[in-house]
Structures are given as structure tokens and as C-alpha cells.
């Protein structure tokens, strides 16, 4: 764990192939933000086809090229394959290249070592390898748009046999996933070791900021859930490249041709089990770091300790454990009998309890506060009701009987987007605004921040709220044109509204983009602890130098010692003894 001195290093070692956790964190965050924007752009184009089926795509239609678009006498329209490719890549990019790398790779890397008072991660070179594996995975995914047949188009879930018989893009998808999974595994091992081994003196587990707990549990989820998908990905690669039939049953007839060349005997359901064994814990990988960020921002801006800190921690650990026992609720419609469905319904109901406890703790934390409505706080506060909507709408999907009607409809899309977009993404924005001064020594602009927040808050609800009604009407997800069916045509008006909200939402991100780059160079310069916060990262200079702390910090108290009676200041940093 020897550290080179940052200032002695050439540019490419300091900023490109860096082993410093802060540089790697920023690399992760910036790359992930770019991918989030790309993922959003893909869906914005898809939403044009959904709102105005078959109408020529204005302006950019020509640029997209075949097979994504097809020529009409008057212009270009999205093709069925193009739509499916954009859909599959939207999901893949948003989850594996956007949200997780930002939440874990970005915030985890930058904040966690600082918050535990460590000079860096336990394995800095592994950390660098993790980022470059992620970056390579991203490049492979992007390249797949340009191979014959276009990018993967079997959904982000890649169910075989469809994915087994899909074009080359699917092979690229699988290679990309193997790289991304490798990146996550390297990162998670590093986070666990760093948290366990490198905490500052006096920083016991129950003095850890909640954000660190959230990252620690998240790392265990990544470490234990990703290997089955990696194995499944390799099996699917074998099916596609080596003529095996892990996921292909005997007797397939595709386009009227009997597939005699296949050995058969495989099971399409095996993939679904392996996939969801990862993908459900993955949901909590998306949520937990967000909850961690929200807890930090709420404690700081209510100016009081979090309510139920220990309940938060125990709930998070329990949530992490339970997340491994609910996967088959994504598969209720595969023909599940009473025993299995009862088990998975019961575990799904059980997992809602710690989620309710966490949300309750965060809301009760507002009681008796002195709330500062800073930009990060606005995002953190908006997270709470929207995450609640996401959680509540999981109930009808977690019970088999109500799931019959709602499974695979827009109701599901509304549900998980409320959790991940108005939920997690809002928390991530809160995090960007909150820790930006630590990373750059400058604050982001408040006015632009509010100009980002309010339209985003309005339009994101305009995007996802109508989806519950569209889904309830019976409109299925992944439909290129819902007006093909009577029940879809009946709610087409809502679909048009969703599309317009989505386009307004993407415009609403421009104040953020401008603010982000402008503030790096021109933002208001601030001192090391501009939010008057208590956790250790704020006792390091902004931006922290290589090695972070001039002297190793010694922790004297819990993470959220705000508004202690009789004190002059309303906060007491963790490395300052309470009685001092």
C-alpha cells in the first residue's frame, strides 16, 4: 500500500491511469454521467416512435443509419429491430454503465475512503483495473451498435432462445457484460477490504456514516450475485459460438426451419433463474448507495442526528440478505405452482418491511429539524416520496394474483423507474451537488441547481406517473406501437404525454450540464467544510491531496453530532471530541 507522491507523477499517471481513489472516482462519475445521457437519448428517440407511430423521425432520423432506421418515401423511421436494440441498450446502459458505476464506482470510490479516514483504497491498482475493465466494457457495448445487425436487441434481460439466435450484437453484449461484471467484482472486493481494514482510529462500525454501511452491503451484493450471471453469460456465449445448447430445448423450429443442428436438451428457464438471481440484488445495488447519499444529505441539512441510525443499519443488512431470496417474483408467469409462488410472495412481502423502516427513519428524521433547503437537500427530499411510490407499486407486482394483469406491462416500467430514476437518480444528483465542493474546491451554482431541480421534478413525474395508468389499461412493455391493440389505442393520449414529458426532462438537464462544467472552473470557491458537516471527508482539504489527510484522523464520536445543546456551533466533526 505504498503511495507515490501525486505531484511527482506524469500527467497520464496522475489523471488517466491513476491509482488515486479520488481520480478514479471522478473518472467513474464523469464516464457514468456521459453514459446516463446516452441512455436517455436512446429512449428519447424511442419515445418519438411510441408517441407518433410510423411518423418520420425529424432531423436526426437520417443520421441513425440502417438497420436502426428504415427509409420511407419522405424520410426515416425507426425499425422494429432498431427499437428493440435501443430498448435493450437503454436498459443495459442505464443500469450497468450509468447508475451502478456512478453510485458505487463514482461516489463509493471518491467518498468512502475519505469518510473512513483512509489515505486510499486497500488495493489502488485493483481499483484502477476495475475502472478500466468498466471502460472497456463500455467501449465494447458502444461498438456493438456498428456491427452487422446492430446492437443487442433481446431486451436487457436477454432471454434465450431469442438471445441465442440474435445477431452479432448479442455476442458483443455478452463480452461487454463479462468485462462489466469483472469490474464490479474487483471493485466490491476492494470496498469490503478497505472498509473492514482501513477505518481511522476510533471509527468503530457503529460510528460509520450510513453511506459507508450502504456501500459495504452493496459490495457484498455485487460480490455474491454477479458470479452466477457471469457464469450464465459464458454459457450463453457457448450457445452462440460453440454450438452448445445450455438454454436451447430440443425440437426448436425457427422461421419454419427445424433446428436439427442443435443438440438441444437445454432449458430457457435456467437463464431466467441465473439472470434474476443477479438482477434482483442488483436492484438493491441501485438503491442502497442512493439511500446512503440521502441519509448524509438529510442529516446535514436537518442539522440533527438521523433518527434510528441502528435501525437503518440493521434494516440495510437484512435487506441485503433478503434480496437473494426474492428473484423468482420476476418469473411468476412462467408457470409457477403454489409452493414456489407462496415462498417468493412471502419473501417479497418480508423484504418490504426493512424498506418501510428505512424510509420511516429518514422521514422521522425531519421532525424537530431546522431544514436548510439547499440544492442537494431538494433532491434528497424529492427522493423520499418518489421512492415511496416506487416501493408501494411493487406490492401489486409482488403478489401473484394481481401480477397476472400487471406483469410485463407499463405498470412494471413505472414501478422500477420510480425506484431508480426519480428515486436513485435524484439521490445521485443530490450527491453530485453535495460532494462537488469536496472534489473541486468550488460550489455548484444555486440558481442553476434550482433551475435543474424544479423542471426535473415536474417532468419526471410526467414521464412515469401516467405509466401506471397505461399499464393498468393492459399496454405491454417493449411494444413498438401500442395502437396496434384496442386497449393500447385507448390510452395513446397518455403515451403522447409521457413522450413530451421525457423530451422536456432531457431539456431540463441542460442547466445541470452547464452548471457542472462551468462550476469546475468558475464556481464559487469554498472552504474545506462548506456545508458545516460532521463526517471525516470534510476535515480533509478541498480537493484532498494525494493521501487525503495531513495526519491520520482520530475519531471521537458518532457520524451525525448536530445541534448538541450548549454548544456554540451546531455541528461537531467526528474527529473532534464532544467535550472539547
Amino acid at each position: 500500500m505504498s503511495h507515490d507522491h501525486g505531484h511527482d507523477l506524469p500527467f497520464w499517471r496522475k489523471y488517466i491511469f491513476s491509482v488515486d481513489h479520488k481520480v478514479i472516482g471522478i473518472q467513474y462519475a464523469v464516464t457514468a454521467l456521459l453514459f446516463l445521457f446516452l441512455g436517455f437519448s436512446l429512449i428519447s428517440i424511442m419515445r418519438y416512435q411510441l408517441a407518433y407511430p410510423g411518423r418520420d423521425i425529424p432531423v436526426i432520423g437520417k443520421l441513425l443509419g440502417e438497420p436502426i432506421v428504415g427509409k420511407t418515401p419522405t424520410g426515416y423511421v425507426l425499425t422494429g429491430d432498431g427499437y428493440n436494440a435501443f430498448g435493450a441498450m437503454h436498459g443495459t446502459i442505464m443500469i450497468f454503465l450509468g447508475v451502478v458505476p456512478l453510485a458505487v464506482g463514482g461516489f463509493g470510490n471518491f467518498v468512502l475512503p475519505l469518510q473512513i479516514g483512509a489515505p486510499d483504497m486497500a488495493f489502488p491498482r485493483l481499483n484502477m483495473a476495475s475502472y478500466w475493465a468498466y471502460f472497456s466494457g463500455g467501449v465494447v457495448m458502444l461498438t456493438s451498435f456498428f456491427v452487422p445487425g446492430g446492437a443487442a436487441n433481446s431486451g436487457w434481460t436477454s432471454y434465450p432462445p431469442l438471445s441465442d439466435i440474435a445477431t452479432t450484437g448479442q455476442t458483443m453484449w455478452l463480452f461487454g457484460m463479462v468485462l462489466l461484471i469483472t469490474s464490479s467484482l474487483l471493485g466490491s472486493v476492494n470496498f469490503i477490504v478497505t472498509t473492514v481494514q482501513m477505518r481511522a482510529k476510533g471509527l468503530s462500525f457503529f460510528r460509520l456514516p450510513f453511506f459507508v454501511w450502504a456501500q459495504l452491503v452493496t459490495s457484498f451484493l455485487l460480490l455474491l450475485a454477479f458470479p452466477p450471471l457471469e457464469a450464465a453469460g459464458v454459457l450463453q456465449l457457448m450457445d452462440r459460438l460453440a454450438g452448445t445448447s445450455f438454454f436451447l430445448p430440443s425440437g426448436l423450429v425457427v422461421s419454419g426451419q427445424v433446428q436439427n443442428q442443435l443438440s438441444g436438451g437445454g432449458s430457457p428457464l435456467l437463464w431466467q433463474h441465473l439472470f434474476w438471481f443477479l438482477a434482483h440484488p442488483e436492484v438493491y445495488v441501485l438503491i442502497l448507495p442512493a439511500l446512503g447519499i440521502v441519509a448524509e444529505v438529510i442529516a446535514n441539512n436537518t442539522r440533527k442526528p438521523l433518527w434510528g441510525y441502528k435501525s437503518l443499519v440493521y434494516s440495510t443488512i437484512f435487506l441485503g440478505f433478503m434480496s437473494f431470496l426474492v428473484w423468482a417474483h420476476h418469473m411468476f408467469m412462467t408457470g409457477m405452482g403454489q409452493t414456489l409462488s407462496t415462498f417468493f410472495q412471502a419473501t417479497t412481502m418480508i423484504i418490504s418491511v426493512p424498506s418501510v423502516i428505512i424510509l420511516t427513519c429518514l422521514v422521522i428524521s425531519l421532525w424537530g429539524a431546522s431544514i436548510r433547503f439547499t440544492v442537494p437537500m431538494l433532491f434528497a427530499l424529492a427522493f423520499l416520496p418518489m421512492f415511496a411510490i416506487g416501493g408501494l407499486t411493487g406490492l401489486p407486482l409482488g403478489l401473484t394474483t394481481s401480477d397476472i394483469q400487471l406483469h410485463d406491462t407499463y405498470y412494471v416500467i413505472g414501478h422500477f423507474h420510480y425506484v431508480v430514476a426519480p428515486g436513485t437518480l435524484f439521490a445521485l444528483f443530490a450527491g453530485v451537488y453535495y460532494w462537488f465542493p469536496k472534489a473541486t474546491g468550488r460550489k455548484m451554482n444555486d440558481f442553476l441547481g434550482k433551475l435543474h431541480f424544479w423542471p426535473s421534478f415536474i417532468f419526471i413525474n410526467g414521464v412515469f406517473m401516467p405509466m401506471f395508468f397505461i399499464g393498468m389499461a393492459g399496454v405491454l412493455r417493449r411494444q413498438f406501437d401500442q395502437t396496434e391493440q384496442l386497449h393500447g389505442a385507448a390510452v395513446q393520449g397518455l403515451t403522447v404525454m409521457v413522450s413530451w414529458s421525457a423530451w422536456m426532462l432531457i431539456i431540463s438537464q441542460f442547466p445541470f450540464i452547464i452548471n457542472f462544467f462551468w462550476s469546475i472552473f468558475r464556481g464559487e470557491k469554498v472552504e474545506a467544510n462548506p456545508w458545516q458537516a460532521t463526517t471525516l471527508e470534510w476535515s480533509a482539504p478541498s480537493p484532498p491531496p494525494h493521501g487525503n489527510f495531513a495526519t491520520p484522523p482520530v475519531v471521537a464520536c458518532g457520524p451525525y453530532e448536530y445541534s448538541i445543546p450548549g454548544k456554540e456551533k451546531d455541528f461537531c466533526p467526528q474527529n473532534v471530541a464532544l467535550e472539547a
Partner: protein
Amino acid sequence: MLAASSFGHYGAWLPPLISVHGAEVDRLIDILHWFMLLLFVGWGIFFVYCLVRFRRRAGQKASYVLPKGKISKYAEVGVALFEVVLLVGFSMPAWAEYRTHPPAKDHRVEIRVIAQQFQWNVHYPGPDGKFGRTAAEFISDANPIGLDDSDPAAADDVQLVNEMHLPTGKDIYVRLTSMDVVHSFSIPTMRVKQDAIPGMEIPVWFKVLEGATTENLDEQMTRTYPIGRVAWDRFRHHVAAKDYADRSGQVILARGGDLGATFRDGKKLLERLRQAGVTELTLRPRNALELVCAQLCGNSHYKMHAQIITHTPQDYEKWLKEQSKPVEFNEDF
């Protein structure tokens, strides 16, 4: 103003319901949404109160002492208990009926449904009640399920593409499979959904409400709209219930014709009708009942739907007999 009937209407909530078990599904969905609304509103009031009451202002100091009280605990236990009630009292019994106890063999109408990219193949055993043998080697455009003509049981079998006929008031037992990729057998108006997985035959059963015949539904959903109230969502799926002609007697919109597949066509046609002095239109929905695919199955996934036609049991028998090939007897047999 959407086409409506005593079975419900198409719009931004659940579509019409014409199956027996569907009432349980809808009841649970309704209860759940009232429960969710109650929780969200109660919780939202507390949230907004806190934001206003505890906003930073002169004299508002944060309290280091955390609030005590058991209300949150009671609320959490209450939510957990209610979830148990929903699971044990509602979801499990309905699921048992729908998934675990199939209707008795001699009381049910059995149909095989074989999904493929991008069509629904429906196989009826015919009046003899026996499905003929099928094999991949016999598959052709005219014989998509590969029915073996040499099998005597196949002689009266009926195979349909993208059309499914069902009797009302009878237990229907569908033996579902797929030839190629994973599809999903979904009938929104019957609250039925079951994945069709290649290599597996999975049964799904349901019963259409008595009286919910296509004829009845068509009649109930036929409505007369003032021409100014005809919205674009009706262009594609609604057909004229009678002929509309201009003053010279030339038919502009014939009975059974639709208003056009696109917004532009529809608007043009409406304008012509208006100029011809038509003030109201009598329309009925085309394909009020549909079987759709709920699992992404390729580039034309969205087009994979079949029309469902429901008959009284007597009409259904009659229809089946008409469709069945006459049984040919030969000396070998």
C-alpha cells in the same frame, strides 16, 4: 367517451372484464391501490407538515434529542400485518384456483396453443375430442403446427392462425407451448397471462363469463358519437355500424369500414363526412377481445395478436362442427 359495456370499458384503468376468476384479480388490485393511496396520503401529510413546520427560520433550532413514541413502530407492524392478510387471504386462494386445481378432464374444453414468431397457432381436437399427432417434419405454411394427416385422430382437427374461438360459461383448458422463442399468452380482458416456453407444455385455464359473447359485446360497445367527439384513438379500431353516403348517394364510409389507420387519413375522412352533412357516427370497436404476446419475441412482437371470438356453448359446438373436416373412412381404417 370510450366504447363501454356492462363488462367495463377501455381507458386508463383496467380494461373490460369477461372472465370468472378475473373478478378476484381486480378485487385484489383495487384493495391494494386503496391501501397504497391511504399509506401515501397519510405519510405525505406528515412529510409536508415537517417541511413547513421545521423549515429553517429565525428561532427554529434543531433538536438534538430524537423524538420518541411508538407510532412508527405500530405503523410498520400494521403494514406488515396487512401484507400478510393480502397474501394469505387474497392472493394465495385465488392463485390456487387459477394455477393449482385444473378443471376436471370431462368438464373442460381443451385447446392447444402453439406460439411462434409472430403468430398464434390454435389447435382444436375437433368433435372426437382427440388431438392429432404433430411433428416438426410436417410443418409448412399451410400446416404451421405440423399436423400428421395420417393420424386418424387428426382427421377432424382444426387449426387456426391468429384466431381463437371460445365458448362462454365453460372451463377452458389451454395447453400452451412455443416453437421458437419465449412468448407470453396474454388476454387483458380475461386477466390471463402465461409464458409460452419452448420445450415445455404448460397448461392455463379460465372461464369466459356467461353472456360475454362477441355478438353481445359488439352490440353493447356500439355507440353513436357526435362527429365532433370522434377522437383519433377510434380511427384504427372502430368500424362503421352502417353505411354513410353523401347527398348524391355515393358511399363515403361503408358499414364495416374503418376511419383509416392514421391520424391524417382519419381527419380527412371525418372532414368529408362533415361536408356531406353527417352529424353523428355509429361505431363499434374492431377486435374487442384480443390475445396478445406479453414477452419480447423479436422485431414484430407488437404485431403478434389474435382475434378472440366468444360463442354460446351451442354456437361453439356448431362452429366447431362446421370447421372440422368430414371424417373420411377408408378400408384400412
